[in-house]
């Protein structure tokens, strides 16, 4: 029971984070590339309810950050409060590449700025960049997993179902790929491909590279399941009735490997998200100004940012609950596979 509620909790968290990342334009107050050169490395804006005389204003408001004389420190200009409006008009954005809109969930009037998580070196809102960066990092993980598993399923079924020389060749290749250090391979493959690419190309390249590197393990696991499923009585019976290979695979083999696929997906997605973050941290992911979590973390390689701008760690911190939820998910999938199987039915 406890496991199931943990699993539900992590599912809810994952749904929330994926939805908010998908609708990043709506939830973020600014465009990811909008700069405010007056406010580089601005700390998170604090949201007030009570003004400086101690009178509550009954709605949340912020003060404007102004530079203190000398140095990079900021202080709040407490003379005028700027209230936070819901559903304000702001920069245009598109959702899912189709709908264009200009309403944002919240925002403040222009001279003031609301930086929920501070700003980066160009004065860009880190909260907005985090949401838009999640579009790259999280969805790269999802799509790469989909790609890898499709690749793995096709090759695994081919190897397990037909046996013989396809099996031998595929399994040798699996051994070859399993023997390679995957991060080195990822870097090497990325290095042999063109460096300066558009964000969409970089995204696509990442997925292809991950697919090339990662298909081996799922393919081997699936082959094992297919090998045992192939000898089941009902499958032999279906074959003797003259069922075609395609029918057998679709109706008898695929249901057998569904549980395995789910568990593998829950294991692989966080790995690939981390791989994307690592690659863009190393400067091989999508380029500026498009944000990705690794790219934001890469500014921490400068020591002055590392030691004094703690809010720049936020993309790393958001990774922890993501990894945790996927971990809980894969654990509970492994433990009560039969139960989960019943839910799916």
């Amino acid at each position: 029971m406890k496991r199931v509620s943990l699993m539900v909790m992590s599912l809810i968290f994952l749904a929330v984070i994926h939805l908010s990342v998908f609708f990043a334009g709506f939830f973020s107050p600014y465009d990811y590339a909008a700069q405010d050169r007056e406010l580089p490395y601005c700390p998170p804006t604090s949201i007030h309810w009570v003004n400086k005389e101690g009178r509550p204003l009954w709605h949340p408001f912020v003060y404007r950050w102004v530079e203190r004389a000398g140095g990079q420190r900021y202080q709040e200009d407490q003379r005028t409060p700027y209230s936070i409006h819901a559903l304000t008009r702001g920069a245009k954005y598109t959702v899912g590449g189709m709908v264009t809109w200009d309403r944002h969930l919240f925002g403040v009037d222009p001279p003031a700025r609301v930086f929920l998580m501070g700003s980066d070196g160009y004065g860009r809102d880190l909260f907005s960049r985090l949401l838009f960066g999640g579009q790259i990092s999280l969805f790269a993980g999802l799509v790469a997993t989909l790609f890898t598993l499709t690749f793995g399923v096709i090759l695994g079924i081919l190897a397990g179902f037909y046996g013989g020389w396809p099996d031998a060749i595929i399994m040798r290749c699996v051994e070859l790929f399993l023997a390679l250090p995957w991060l080195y391979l990822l870097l090497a493959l990325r290095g042999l491909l063109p460096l300066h690419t558009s964000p969409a190309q970089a995204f696509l390249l990442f997925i292809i590279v991950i697919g090339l590197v990662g298909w081996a393990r799922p393919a081997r696991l699936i082959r094992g399941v297919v090998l045992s499923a192939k000898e089941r009585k009902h499958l032999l019976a279906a074959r003797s009735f003259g069922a075609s290979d395609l029918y057998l695979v679709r109706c008898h083999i695929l249901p057998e490997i569904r549980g395995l696929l789910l568990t593998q997906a829950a294991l692989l997605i966080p790995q690939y998200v981390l791989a994307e973050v690592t690659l863009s941290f190393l400067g091989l992911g999508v380029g500026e100004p498009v944000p990705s979590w690794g790219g934001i973390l890469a500014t921490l390689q400068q020591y002055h940012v590392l030691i004094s701008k703690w809010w720049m760690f936020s993309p790393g911190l958001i990774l922890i609950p993501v990894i945790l939820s996927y971990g809980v998910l894969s654990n509970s999938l492994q433990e009560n596979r039969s139960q989960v199987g019943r839910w799916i039915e």
Partner: protein
Amino acid sequence: MIISSALWLYSLPICETYLGPRTPVGQIMRYVAIRFGQAILLLLGISFFAFAFVAVSPGDFFQEMRLNPQISQNTVSRFRTQYGMDQPFLIRYGRWLKSVGHGDLGYSLAYGSPVVPLLLVRARNTLFLTGTAMFLAWLSALSLGVCCAEWSEGWLDRVCLLATSILLVFPELLLGLCFLALAVRTGWFRTGGMVSPGFEDLSPWNQAKDLAAHLFVPALVLSLGSLPVLFRHVRTAMLEVLDSPSIRAARGHGISRHRILFRHALPVALNPIVSLFGLSLASLLSISLLTEVIMSWPGLGPLLLEAVLSRDVYVVIGATMLSALFLVMGSAAADLLLYASDSRIHPEG
């Protein structure tokens, strides 16, 4: 790629026919020989694959130069001719194989020297770091794992389980950055590089101290990164053994706890631990890439990254091959270790 995998495929039965009788020693020799052949074919496969990739992907080392207005188009093309980059792909691969025969693995355009000496220095630094880290990780995983299994559900066990759960969800990247921030902020540890400037002038004792100060943070991060998995395996294996009738009987005979743990239980629990040890042995050259880049440790990782960013392809290929070779050799060594530690297991041909 296809050629090499086909070769590999056919190498197995051939090896089987020509390699000695099935005596224990003969079996090991056979196994080593087969693994060796596989490693060579693997390296051939990787290099061929990499060359094919380079041949089809646009741009090369001199492309950056072409953007520089001070270097004329002629100079660039002369450079390319000089380094043989205008030749067809198979000829370049053949030349590269010849340079492998000389023990060079090609020529680094960015460093202006053969690849192998470059790689060896960096690999030594990496091994120094990962060796220390693995030693620390295994020492703490073994001692903590044994203690936690003996006093399971005790306070130490709870603390360790909680700590490893936290470490398990902490990405290595974040761990490295946090420790680096701590080290820079407090100034307790040296960061950046492997030695301080003016290292040569120090006395041997001070040299060792300086090296250790630089080594501390990266080694700590690496060992913390691999500790959770090791600890959990050791603990699970020990728990299983400690629950067995033989150990309960030993306890009933009044044998001391220390002796039971380390003379009776640990050797039995060693099987999964040894294969895990083999894995960490195999990954010695490849696990530390990210940590090295974060801590700017002059190992194989930063070299590979620089080479990738400047498209110095022979260094990329060489570094990948070296770490792959290490992985293959490490996993072979792991199997042999397993064979040595447990006489019920025989190496398969």
